[in-house]
């Protein structure tokens, strides 16, 4: 979900919009700390990359940290999508779901 949010947000993806994007689709509040923890792990694995923006007064003088998905991340995302689509295509319609 975080990777998809990053793709959707493009270059302006930092903690707040990523959390907002996920909350919008999930309908539940998301902890910013858990998003950063997950992004850190993805960064260590080379799936996302980050850069620091300019500090702003409303952020207490702290800079934004912008994330973007790397080429390796895009490749893995595409692979995951293929696998998921294949598995969903073979899945019979679930109860309560429209065919």
């Amino acid at each position: 979900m975080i990777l998809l949010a990053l793709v959707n947000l493009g270059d302006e993806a930092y903690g707040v919009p990523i959390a907002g994007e996920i909350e919008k689709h999930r309908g539940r509040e998301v902890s910013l700390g858990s998003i950063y923890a997950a992004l850190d792990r993805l960064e260590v694995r080379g799936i996302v990359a980050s850069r620091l923006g300019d500090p702003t007064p409303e952020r207490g003088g702290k800079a934004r940290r912008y994330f973007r998905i790397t080429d390796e991340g895009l490749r893995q995302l595409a692979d995951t999508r293929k696998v998921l689509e294949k598995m969903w295509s073979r899945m019979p319609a679930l109860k309560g779901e429209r065919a």
Partner: protein
Amino acid sequence: MKRRAAPAFAGWMVEHLVPGDRSDGLAGDLLEQLAAGRTSRWYWRQAVAAVASGWFALLNDQRPLLILALLWSSLAPAWTACFNRLQDGALAYAETWRMDTPWSSVSAFSLWMVLNLLFIWTPIFLCLIPNTWISRSISRRRFRLALLLTAFVFFAGYFVEWVLFMVFSWPGPAIPGHSFTPTAELTDVRTWALMLRIPYFLSVLCALWTTQVPTAAGPCEEAVPQPRSLTGHRERVLPADPSRFNLVGLPGLLVSGFVSALFACLLLCRMPGIHGVVNAKLVVEALVYVGMAALAGAGGTALYWNSSDSPFTSNPPLSFDRFALVTAASWVWVPVAFLLVVHHSPAAPFAIALGAASLAAGLRGAIPEPIIPEAPVKGMFEGALRTGCRDWNGLLIAVCVATAAWAFSRGLSLPAAIPLATAGFVFAWKYRIAPADSADNAQVIRRDLVKLCGTAMTAVLVTLAVMVFGFAGRGYRLAGVPDSKSTVPNQARRAQARQALSKSSGYQSIILWPLPQKNEPVSPPPEHEQLLVPDTAHPLIIRFDGPYWYFQSPHRQPSSKAHQAHGTPVDYRIEASGGQLTMEAHQFLNGRIPLSDCREIQMTVANRNNAPGTISLAMLLTNSELRGKPAVYLGQQPVVSTEPAHFSFKSAPVTEVLRFSVPDKARLRTFNEITVMFLPERGRSYLAPEIAIQQFALFSR
């Protein structure tokens, strides 16, 4: 957008408790959301979740390290059992470790530290080998750092635990050391065993973490390789604001300086000898002690300052000369504190606190005040109304002083030094005004040099006073209770005893005879007479007038060249220079007493023992006239006032009566000697019990 302040503690949590160095982005995001209308409650929720999820993710990534550290530290009690066996066995008799005081303490501590570090470092090497095989190279610097850090964490953890034990469960846990077996200790889950595992767990985890866990890198796109200097070390990135002093490296500098000064004191500082005290010599000794402590402290600081691990290798916030001068003004107090601590003086905590306060005041005077931009105040008194009057430093000082007072009231002068020193340091640090501007460097150094000279001279005078009064106090203690009727020969004999019983006398063994009692002749019972005082039903009383034997294992009695002196054990502190010290008391009777006539022997003892640890007394009845000197063992009885539950600091001897039942049937029919063996618990067997035997009461059957 209107800026709202985050809840103070929650903000601190986000900035300091979230692992990794990426908390700035998170803190900024939270502040941005707060400014956008989120509530403080939401901020709190996010802060707690961030800390929890951050640590969970970090620990989850390092599960193998945690499990290894946990498993390895669970072996600690078994290791301790092996170590104790080794120490009591082969090493106790090894000539290498048989040194005179204080070298015996140094060698024992070194042995303990080295063996424990070998145990702790083993998993590092175990992890290093597979890592090298998989060609995942480990930084040599980090490996070295891990080894050093482990030693520090282990020692600090052990020391803190010991202090906590002393403060909250004086005189420490009752550990049945003699019944230890390494295999049984593997599954030992008693409190003391669990507590023992904690410093080992922290040390092993710290070592593994330092060598295995990669340091958090900055953002990928901003990670720029740091330039290398000609010597191969990476150049350090300077802080943006040079007026902000980097406090991260400060504890390391202070610890290295302090340890060096302490080591110099350990090697040099001695109280003056019992005889031949010359005032001029004392003055020179005090000067040397203070001077060497200051030099050693500066040397230790210089070592760390110039090491590759130091944060001050390039563009330090103040010059080394100045830092060395400022800190040396506190190292000069180390000899005073050392001498007072070694001689169990109640003034020791105050000397330590004085040194800590001096250190803090000196540092505060040298370190520039960080420039913190003030928030604009809109209305009159708004700032005063907004800023709460909370002084956590005052609270900390009050708690420390109260803890120190409580420890003093319990007679724990050394543990009281820690809170007192903390209070002194914080007080001096917070309430000394930092310099507003930096004057000419040469002028400042001259000023600091003058200050150091003044402080050093004061320290020399105090050291001199401690040496003179310490000498006088020790002389009084060794002389025992002054006797106005004592004769000149008695004084000479006591002086000889003092000389003999000083720790550095170097005697292989000592025989201590009680001082002769005037007009109280010993009345050994006549042979074959009932054990009753004539014409009464009272038990027969035999006042103890025999010798006390002090000798070291593996001997079984004092050597033929044993030094003989007069005195009572409650007035002397006799330590073994190596190995186990054995103490016995022997009461010789003029006649033989039939064993069948005696039902019970009650022994009255005077205990003035202030070292923790249970001491038991065992009694033997011997017939020394028969071949082979057959004996009957009457068992052993603990001295109740030495047991942990009844222990208290004693300024005067406590009298106690121990009862020993005599069997009616034994292979011995008569006895003419009573032997009392002093059996201290392991761990304090190097120190002779300060227990004197007063009399025996023999009850007829």
